[in-house]
């Protein structure tokens, strides 16, 4: 369903570009007209095996006895366009956008299965691709980079306060500050963890650090504060954490992202929730997983929000679907707020965790589609 929508949108964009003097205006009206396809149970007769770049119209007639389908494939079997479920006797018209000159393949699929009856199809002339909407995408990345910058600043402030409390031996205060500092890390996690070996030092868990590597960072201090009590080297660990965080913050503030990284980041944050947070393994000593959960989700929403103008233009149905699922997950997270923060993860029932997981799955399925929409040239 999504692909149909986006194909229609792409077509719209192309026509618009053509109206502004693009090269696609004569594709359909160049005297050659629609290409007729005769599909039977064993044959696929394509009237003409070439067309100029732009919008190509096919008229597919199923004269066989099986339900048929017609496809146009690009390189690597990428579906450029298809018309499904053509009952015997039916004639179906469809348009496919073939903007780049080169070799494609047509295919009929009697019985709707297999690789189909294939033939080569050539697109001639010069590229008719509409210009990508650079301005909106540039604005999206700029907006998200500002977000990353502001979160990075807060990460440094909160981590400094946390480290100060640890070094002052104020366990109660440090425990209060811990989930607050973590929140900013979790919001920009895909960016923060992209800087080589800093991530395992800052955010490594006791069972995940590489062989021979010392257990350091937030989670080591978490263990000290909640389980073992402050150790002789806790102060050193705290100092190193702050130095590492400073390093990450500096890099995060100067990072250059592209729109696809934003799209993938919005999904990566939800994946973090599905694999590390929903299981309660991330904050195994403090059980403050819901803070991380909410923070990952906020980070993901920010990336989606930055891309929203582009998504709204290219796939408004997807935006609607994302909004609905995000609202449902938001409501569930809000349910578990307690004071200024969240309930301990261990206080959630199995049914409540499943409810979160189900709403998260629903959100991720939709958010995963963003990259495909953003990548449309």
């Amino acid at each position, binding site marked *: 369903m999504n692909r149909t929508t986006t194909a229609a949108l792409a077509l719209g964009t192309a026509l618009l570009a053509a109206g502004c003097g693009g090269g696609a205006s004569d594709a359909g009206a160049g005297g050659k007209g629609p290409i007729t396809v005769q599909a039977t149970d064993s044959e696929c007769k394509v009237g003409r095996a070439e067309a100029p770049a732009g919008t190509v119209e096919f008229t597919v007639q199923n004269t066989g006895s099986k339900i048929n389908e017609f496809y146009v494939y690009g390189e690597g*079997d990428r*579906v450029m366009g298809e018309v499904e479920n053509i009952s015997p006797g039916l004639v179906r018209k469809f348009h496919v956008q073939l903007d780049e000159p080169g070799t494609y393949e047509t295919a009929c699929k009697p019985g709707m*299965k297999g690789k189909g009856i294939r033939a*080569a199809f050539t697109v001639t002339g010069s590229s008719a691709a509409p210009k990508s909407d650079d301005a909106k995408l540039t604005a999206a990345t700029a907006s998200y980079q500002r977000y990353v910058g502001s979160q990075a600043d807060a990460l440094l402030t909160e981590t400094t306060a946390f480290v100060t409390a640890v070094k002052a031996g104020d366990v109660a205060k440090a425990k209060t500050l811990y989930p607050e500092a973590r929140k900013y890390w979790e919001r920009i996690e895909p960016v923060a963890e992209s800087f080589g070996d800093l991530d395992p030092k800052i955010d490594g868990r006791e069972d995940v650090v590489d062989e021979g590597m010392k257990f350091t960072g937030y989670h080591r201090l978490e263990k000290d504060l909640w389980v073992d009590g402050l150790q002789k080297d806790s102060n050193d660990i705290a100092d190193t954490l702050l130095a590492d965080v400073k390093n990450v913050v500096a890099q995060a503030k100067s990072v250059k992202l592209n729109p696809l990284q934003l799209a993938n980041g919005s999904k990566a944050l939800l994946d973090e929730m599905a694999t590390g947070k929903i299981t309660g393994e991330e904050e195994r000593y403090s059980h403050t997983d819901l803070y991380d959960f909410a923070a990952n989700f906020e980070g993901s929403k920010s990336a989606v929000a930055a891309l929203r103008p582009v998504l709204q233009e290219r796939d408004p149905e997807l935006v609607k679907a994302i909004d609905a699922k995000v609202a449902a997950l938001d409501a569930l997270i809000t349910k578990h707020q307690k004071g200024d923060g969240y309930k301990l993860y261990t206080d959630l029932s199995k049914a409540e965790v499943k409810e979160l997981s*189900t709403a998260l799955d*629903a959100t991720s399925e939709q958010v995963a589609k963003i990259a495909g929409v*953003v990548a449309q040239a």
Partner: protein
Amino acid sequence: MTQHPDLADPLRPQPDPGGAGPVAGGAVTRRRLLGVSAGAAAAGVLAGAGGAYAATRDSQPSSPAADPLDAEVAFRGEHQPGITTPAQDRMHFVALDVVTKNPDELKAMLTAWTKAAERMMLGGEAAPGGVVGGGPYNVPEDTGEAYDLPPSNLTITIGYGPSLFDGRFGLKGKKPQGFEDLPAFKGDDLDPARCGGDIAIQACANDPQVAVHAVRNLIRIGFGTVSVRWSQLGFGRTSSTSRSQPTPRNLFGFKDGTANVKAEDTERLDQHVWVQPGDVPGGAAWMSSGSYLVARRIRMHIEVWDRTHLQEQELVFGRDKLEGAPLGQKGEFTPVDFATKSADGGPAIDMAAHVRLAHPENLGGVEILRRGYNFTDGSDGLGHLDAGLFFIAFCRDITRQFVPMQRALAAKDRLNEYIEHTGSAVFACPPGLAEGKDWGAQLFG
């Protein structure tokens, strides 16, 4: 519904009808076929690129190399596939909860499922170009693990639990009368996490990967609308649903399903399996020609059984272990005569033997169509396999057929010493779909 009456199973030892040895022949055939298929598909690509018209293996289903185990089963027809279809060897069953509150979303999902299910039963991708056709930046719409595999007799059967008709989706008036969760039976040890569900999908195939692929892709389509409640894999059929199939064995080593209602018994099917128009008046008329599915996860204490001597084992079932003949009689398919005496003058078949209690003669003529699967779900942490029978039965009226049968068994079946029912669910499986129809419109009208 298209059946495959000649579907013999060459992977199983069976009486040699006087010809090629079916055991070795079958095992080789299956592997060889995969090689042939891949080659033919590759040839199709090459020919296509050269501009010639080339039909692939898929458009030649009658090719001489075709293995009936790999074939396709018709999706559309009067009844759903996967009920009287000759039982395939593997099963993936899943029960789902509907998590949306919006009936339109549920209806749209059922419509999308219809399309994907029909494609997959033909051996196709869940969506056109699903594996790689979306290009590098789209998430593939088909998960891909069944791409090179034949249809493998895949059947996808759908059913609705009583809870779906509780008023959340405006379906209250469509609930068939008397369609409720099963009552408690003596000795039940049910785990709530293995019980119930709003919707069930039963996927059966001769290749487990094909069955799992089908369920997995339908679940994907359903994210946000449904959520998995429980799921069960089965690895060996425990019933034959066609006279063309030999009787398989359960994990106790006994033949199971000898007296099953079979595809060829059309009158018995109408009497015991298919819901008749008069059974479902008014709003429930959509269930006419459907069937009710009863699922029971039966844990077998196989370790205890395995150290039980043969005489006791045969006493429990009431049949001999090797042939499956009723005790005191000869031949698997000999009608059971409960009056047969043993040498000591007592009944040859014990008064609490499984076959006696489950027999229609002692249940007022009640019969069901069984279609269960063996399972092992890892181990139980106590040094035993968590193994058993995932019992599936189809019937026309649960209250009049399954309930009295299970009451009789639960009360005194000798087998109870070795089994425990750990999961339970019932589903109303609608009739088959005619051309152009889908599950969403069928249920919501």
